[in-house]
């Protein structure tokens, strides 16, 4: 009931939201990313893209929006973010595969709205990089104002975070954090943790199979205890869960690819992978993708060899490549500019640059049949900008997810003064009066 009160704080354009699912956006330059540019109109029906064309006519039941010559592009997919969650790291142990970001999704995190305002419509919300095998990640749509369950990207393949290098070997140790030292403290130890975990997972797999066999034979046998730590690793072994591995250096990248091959699974993405350009051929051969920064380097010892050509070089070596934010480490509102940087560093085309933040991350997350490009039948996740989105001067005017307007720049601007007023009034109202009984004794 007070849901209404909650909704009133949302930035939904009521006139647009009430359109019954049909929008006709005309007079637009439509950057499909996969099928070139179409100057014309786009029709949204029931949350999907129903038509794209130069000579479409508006259906009678659709609400028409004049793009005034502005641009439409697919909603941005950020393959690596830490937004919208009440916890990021379970850093107490080196294998925390039992923890799930989905358990702690925080739909009230304002970072979701900020990312949305930058055109991000899908994020892969990852566990942090404090330990070798982190937690299960959650692909979400940035449906600001909806509940945690409604944020989840239904049907996205489950994933898990791995991490290598400095963060892993320093966290939980004596240098950064108080408390007992946590194994491992070296890159050798990191490799060992991976192998040990998957040996355990194989043993668990065998134990479960053996139970089934004995049960089938009609033997009286106690069922094995379910192990929520090893189950997701078994899923990795069986190809049912994607591995997104935080890494920097080329040597640790090769180590992880070899270890995975030894256990018979693939790394889906190398996250950050700042030295991926050095081993791009090997990465392509393994079949891993790379999701990297545009031009962040030298901010830590293992980032000294990073170069801004990384994305372009990987792409040209045949690696499925994307740009990510690690938000809030870098900001989701920088992603368009980050993509634009590859025009300078690597001479990518406009479509190649846009693919780094749309269809490629969608492919990495295996959701490309739903999002990542403007194609008929895909989810109507659309960013409307006034200028070409790779221009520094472009502003995001509206963002659609599933055909609903979730961000509207004009409305946001209109609400700012009113929100500032409410803030001021509330601060005044909540000022503590002198209440002697509230004084508390020394703690």
């Amino acid at each position, binding site marked *: 009931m007070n849901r209404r009160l909650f909704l009133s704080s949302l930035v939904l354009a009521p006139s647009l939201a009430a359109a019954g699912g049909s929008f006709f956006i005309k007079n637009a330059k439509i950057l499909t990313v996969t099928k070139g540019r179409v100057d014309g109109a786009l029709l949204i029906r029931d949350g999907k893209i129903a038509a794209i064309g130069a000579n479409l006519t508006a259906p009678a039941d659709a609400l028409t929006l004049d793009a005034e010559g502005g641009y439409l592009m697919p909603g941005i997919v950020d393959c690596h973010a830490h937004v919208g969650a009440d916890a990021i790291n379970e850093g107490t*142990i080196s294998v925390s595969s039992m923890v799930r970001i989905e358990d702690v999704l925080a739909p*009230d995190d304002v970072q979701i709205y900020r990312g949305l305002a930058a055109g991000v419509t899908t994020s892969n919300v990852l566990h942090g990089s404090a330990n070798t095998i982190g937690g299960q990640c959650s692909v979400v749509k940035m449906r600001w104002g909806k509940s945690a369950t409604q944020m989840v990207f239904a049907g996205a393949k489950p994933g898990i975070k791995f991490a290598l290098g400095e963060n892993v070997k320093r966290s939980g140790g004596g240098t950064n954090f108080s408390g*007992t030292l946590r194994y491992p403290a070296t890159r050798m130890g990191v490799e060992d943790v991976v192998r040990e975990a998957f040996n355990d997972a194989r043993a668990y797999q065998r134990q479960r199979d053996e139970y089934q066999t004995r049960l089938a034979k009609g033997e*009286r046998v106690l069922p094995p205890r379910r192990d929520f730590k090893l189950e997701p690793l078994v899923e990795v072994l069986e190809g049912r869960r994607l591995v997104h591995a935080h890494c920097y250096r080329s040597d640790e990248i090769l180590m992880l690819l070899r270890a995975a091959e030894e256990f018979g699974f693939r790394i889906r993405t190398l996250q950050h992978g700042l030295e991926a350009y050095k081993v791009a051929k090997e990465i392509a051969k393994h079949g891993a993708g790379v999701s990297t920064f545009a031009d962040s380097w030298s901010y830590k010892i293992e980032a000294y060899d990073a170069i801004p050509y990384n994305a372009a070089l990987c792409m040209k070596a045949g690696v499925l490549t994307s740009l990510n934010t690690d938000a809030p480490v870098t900001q989701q509102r920088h992603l368009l500019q980050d993509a634009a940087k590859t025009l300078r560093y690597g001479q990518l085309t406009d479509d190649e640059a846009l693919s780094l933040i749309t269809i490629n991350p969608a492919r990495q997350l295996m959701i490309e049949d739903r999002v990542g490009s403007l194609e008929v039948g895909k989810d109507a996740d659309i960013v409307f900008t006034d200028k070409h989105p790779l221009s520094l001067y472009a502003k995001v005017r509206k963002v659609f997810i599933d055909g609903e307007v979730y961000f509207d720049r004009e409305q946001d601007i209109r609400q700012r003064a009113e*929100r500032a007023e409410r803030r001021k009034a509330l601060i005044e109202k909540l000022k503590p009066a002198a209440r002697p*009984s509230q004084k508390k004794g020394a703690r």
Partner: protein
Amino acid sequence: MQKLLVSTVLLAAAGLAQSPVAGVLAIRGAHLHPASGPSLPNGNIVLRNGLIESIGPNVPIPPEAFVVDGAGLQVYPGLIDALSTWGLPAAPARPTAAPAPGPSPATPAVLERPIQTLDEGGPEERPSNNSWVRAADLLDPRLATLAAARNAGYTTAISFPGANVFSGQGSAYNVAGTRSRQMVIEEGVGQMITFPVRGFGGGFPGSLMGIISYIRQIFSDAAHYRSSQALYAKDPRGLPRPPYDRALDGVIASPRLLLPAGRLAEIDRMIRFGQELQQPLVLYGGAESFRGAALLAAAKVPMLVNLRWPEAERDADPFVKDSLRVLETRDLAPTGPAVLAKAGVKFAFYSGGVERPADLRKAVKKAVDAGLSKEDALKALTLYPAQIFGLDNRLGSLEPGKIANLTVIEGDLFDDRAKLKFTIIDGVKYEPAPETAPETNR
């Protein structure tokens, strides 16, 4: 008789080991508020041997009764603190650092106990688990918090043992008596979960999601433990012996699960988690009840509302600006109970972080001022907590046969200046006594 009773009370208050005698006591011509039905502006209530014998406009007063003239008195069922620490020994000294930041308007003032690791099966096996510990076994009748609770008009506390992930079994007990075993009403009313988020030091689980995963594993283990035991009990021959595990026994013995939830997102999260665990569920905290009432109503989950209303942290960083949403929550939290009542959600108040029991009535008044009817406010202090914890066949209203717990006020309960006249606990009358040296559980 009166002298005897008074001296008994004094002895009890002094903590001497002599049981007070609950004889026959009657209040004549008082304004009675049974909580289970309409109030009686001029009625009598008769108590015998610690139980309510009769209540009504004209019920006869037995000649052997000690009679209190009820003129000008309002008689309520004894107030219940739905999530308390009164009567439990003080915690070992806590580090003086400010409490951890984060989504914690829900965190009650509970005892901090050292984390225990019980099993060597790995870091995530059984840490932070006191599931088998019962508050009843820790109850100390000599503690000044009990007298303070009586002075504030409370007759019953539902207390929980500590601040572990599995904090142990709550117990319901009356806040007066000389022997804890006579004070206890029900020794196991539910397992309280807290989220002691500690960061990277101190072992698994250190994060909110780690704790949630750990709870999920424990409940899965408990189900496995139960089925293994059943199979073994049928015929142990040829089977490995299931190991004894008191941490799982404690979980299995708990009739309901208490999960913390302040924000709307937490209310939603914990309702879904409770459903996943298939446990009868009670939430506590409720700062954003005004936002989450519809969810609670749909899931039929009761909420224990913390009477420490959210407010700006003292010594908060002046450069950190609270979001509009946080400000709204602080402003509207006291409207939560009214919204819950309207949505048909069962709710009860608890003392939470209110450090002086005497301030509790002021805190309740805030909810009444914010739109909660006095009838619902009274129920949230009496009948509803009794119902939520399955004690309403014994407690929570003025009905014949129930435990003789009464709160008697010279004036209206929700007028925070009205004076508490006396409480009656297990049929024994307790006058408000000057508080001894302050002793809190913090």
